[in-house]
């Protein structure tokens, strides 16, 4: 088992080293096969690990002691249990599909850059696996930082473009702000408990040692870390800008895996969160607000990738809402289904962009149904899934969250419904403008339209099938299923939620959400299959279109004062004070030297004078007798 798990994580690392170091030697074909092959091998190994957990239960694998001091021991352990093995499957599975897709999508790049891309992608998978497999918070943090780094590297992949680099920097810096929260939580844990291993922190005895203020603080700081990584308010503006990277990168990192790291972390620490009412409320409120905010912005966007980006932010908000109301398995379920359909949607968008020769504005698209059949069907399946229409997977996961929200607080449920309606609306707006109606682009683009190669369409098909039937792992009792997923995760979750709702209430809730989604869907289809949006004229429209002006707000309120402060420090403190002190010391030495030199004027008389003075001083100090002074005193005063 030890070796198996080591292989899972070492193959992507080998891929990174191989592709990174050998990028000038091997051809594109070799690189593609190797990179994808490593991830597929990881996937197969993950399947074995999963089966092992199914048959034998959770396993903790110990490798070596990472930090070993008198007061603190941090072992390098991996933990394979239901939660991590599920995530392993998703990461390596979706990851290998995306690798396959990228081999065709990135064909236009030259070989060294091609290799660089796959090296970064493999490194990303490695870091994500590290995050998920770790048995203590430190290893998770190592993976956490690693995925942040790879996100930066991949967003800025086309580094010759200045604005892409800016977007990459923005992503990394916002991530880092969240990481500060994570680190503070870590330190708090170490200070209070002296350990960071899951098996020691996440138990009832450890909880007894922490005061409720401790738990609230730790969970709040952990949530701040999740805010940065998983793009919640206020640290979400990096994600739409991150669309500057290649589309498969957006699919992998910003749809399926990295952004879900926060949810993984909170689910892993669910025992801590269940004990802190305040944090749970905060998580839920921020989650639902993010969901609504992002949905309103998505309604008005015209770039195909930006709509999907805001949709991701919105769906992440839903996941956090689920965490906030205690529906941990619901949130994880939504993570898995979201990975399927969002990756599908992004890859489909990539296929469209590829066919349109890198055109991303949906106002220039339309009528692509006939030209790109496979892309069209798979995209449609993805849209239906995200809108929450049964029996596709999105319906089940979203409904589980909404039901739990209804239990907790009716307002959450209502707002969640509003968000679901908006989700259906903007997704079908996107679908209709892109695929239905007449083609609105130039003739040249029309001539070049073609379906994508097999390497790109195969992953689309696989993901479409998964999006369609993926709901089977979580069919709730009220519909006759036995909710396999909750059973899996019951070992992790301390306070499993029980269904307090009656079956009929659940049916009503489900019916209401489906109806609302269907209505929004139909409205969008009817409106947008014939025409596109003009420039937004109403004030609210403008507000949504300009992303609630949040970027501008951040610019004015945070970035500019910081820049001014840094400038002030440089001009005043650095130049005048510090340099002044250093230079001044030199000048002082020079000045005093010049003055002292005048004593040496060559005249013997002066020298003798100084000799006499020296003798006087010597005598006074030597015969340091008070009687000298007394005598002088009597002499002068008698």
């Amino acid at each position, binding site marked *: 088992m030890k070796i198996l798990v080591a292989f899972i994580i070492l193959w992507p690392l080998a891929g990174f080293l191989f592709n990174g170091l050998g990028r000038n030697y091997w051809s594109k074909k070799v690189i593609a096969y190797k990179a994808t092959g490593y991830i597929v091998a990881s996937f197969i190994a993950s399947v074995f690990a999963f089966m092992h957990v199914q048959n034998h239960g959770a396993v903790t694998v110990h490798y070596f002691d990472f930090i070993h001091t008198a007061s603190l021991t941090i072992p390098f352990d991996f933990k394979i249990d239901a939660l991590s093995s599920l995530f392993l499957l998703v990461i390596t599975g979706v990851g290998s599909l995306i690798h396959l897709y990228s081999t065709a999508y990135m064909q236009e790049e030259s070989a060294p850059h091609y290799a660089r891309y796959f090296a970064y992608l493999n490194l990303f998978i490695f870091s994500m696996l590290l995050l998920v497999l770790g048995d203590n918070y430190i290893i998770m943090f190592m993976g956490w930082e690693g995925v942040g780094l790879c996100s930066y590297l991949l967003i800025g992949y086309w580094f010759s473009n200045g604005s892409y680099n800016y977007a990459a920097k923005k992503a990394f810096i916002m991530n880092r702000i969240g990481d500060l929260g994570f680190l503070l939580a870590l330190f708090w844990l170490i200070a209070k408990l002296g350990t960071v291993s899951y098996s020691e922190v996440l138990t009832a005895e450890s909880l007894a040692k922490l005061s409720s203020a401790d738990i609230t603080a730790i969970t709040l700081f952990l949530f701040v870390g999740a805010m940065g990584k998983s793009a919640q308010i206020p640290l979400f503006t990096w994600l739409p800008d991150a669309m500057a990277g290649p589309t498969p990168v957006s699919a992998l990192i910003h749809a399926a895996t990295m952004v879900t790291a926060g949810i993984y972390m909170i689910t892993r620490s669910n025992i801590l969160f269940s004990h802190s009412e305040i944090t749970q409320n905060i998580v839920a409120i921020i989650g639902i607000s993010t969901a609504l905010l992002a949905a309103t912005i998505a309604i008005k966007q015209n770039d195909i990738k930006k709509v999907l980006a805001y949709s991701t932010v919105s769906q992440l908000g839903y996941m956090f809402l689920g965490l906030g109301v205690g529906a941990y398995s619901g949130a994880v379920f939504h993570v898995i289904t979201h990975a399927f359909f969002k990756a599908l949607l992004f890859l489909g968008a990539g296929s469209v962009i590829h066919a349109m020769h890198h055109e991303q504005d949906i106002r220039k698209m339309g009528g692509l149904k006939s030209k790109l059949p496979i892309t069209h069907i798979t995209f449609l399946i993805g849209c239906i899934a995200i809108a929450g229409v049964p029996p596709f997977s999105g319906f089940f996961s979203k409904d589980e969250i909404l039901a739990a929200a209804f239990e907790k607080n009716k307002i959450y449920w209502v707002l969640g419904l509003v968000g679901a309606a908006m989700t259906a609306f903007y997704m079908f707006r996107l679908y209709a403008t892109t695929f239905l109606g007449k083609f609105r682009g130039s003739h040249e683009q029309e001539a070049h339209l073609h379906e994508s190669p097999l390497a790109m369409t195969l992953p689309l098909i696989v993901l479409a099938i998964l999006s369609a039937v993926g709901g089977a792992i979580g069919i709730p009792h009220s519909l006759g299923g036995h909710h396999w997923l909750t059973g899996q995760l019951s070992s992790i979750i301390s306070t499993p939620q029980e269904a307090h709702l009656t079956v009929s209430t659940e049916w009503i809730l489900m019916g209401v959400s489906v109806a609302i989604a269907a209505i929004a869907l139909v409205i969008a289809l009817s409106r947008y299959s014939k025409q596109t949006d003009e420039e937004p004229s109403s004030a609210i429209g403008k507000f949504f279109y300009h992303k609630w002006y949040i970027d501008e707000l951040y610019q004015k309120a945070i970035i500019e004062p910081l820049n001014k402060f840094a400038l002030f420090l440089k001009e005043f403190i650095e130049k005048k004070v510090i340099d002044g002190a250093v230079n001044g010391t030199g000048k002082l030495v020079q000045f005093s030297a010049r003055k002292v030199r005048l004593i040496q004027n060559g005249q013997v008389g002066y020298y003798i004078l100084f000799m*006499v003075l020296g003798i*006087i001083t010597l005598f006074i100090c030597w015969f340091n007798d008070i009687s*000298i002074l007394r005598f002088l005193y009597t*002499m002068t005063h008698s």
Partner: protein
Amino acid sequence: MNAQFLAIVNIIVYAGAIMVLFLFVMMLMNVKKDKEPQKQLWVKLTGVIAGGSFLTLLIALVKQNTSFQGRDVLLKDGSIGLIHPLGQALFTDFVVPFEISSVLFLSAMVGAVIIGKK
């Protein structure tokens, strides 16, 4: 203090030889008093003050020292100032410095002649 030998030697050496040398040199050099500018006033003042304080300090030192109280100088008596014991000590205990002093005189003469010659 009955130091007869030293008194005579003092007179011979100082008033005889050294003074004569001084007079020779002064007459040789034709020193005119008014031509040379005086030393600056503050330098002279500093010199006087320094010297004065030097004197004051040393007098104070001597006065506060108790080991000199009551010791007297023997006047008009004693035989050590006479030439006989002095000559004896000079040629028995101190003969080496005596000879070396003659060498010193030799070198001084040679040096003076050489300096004067250039």
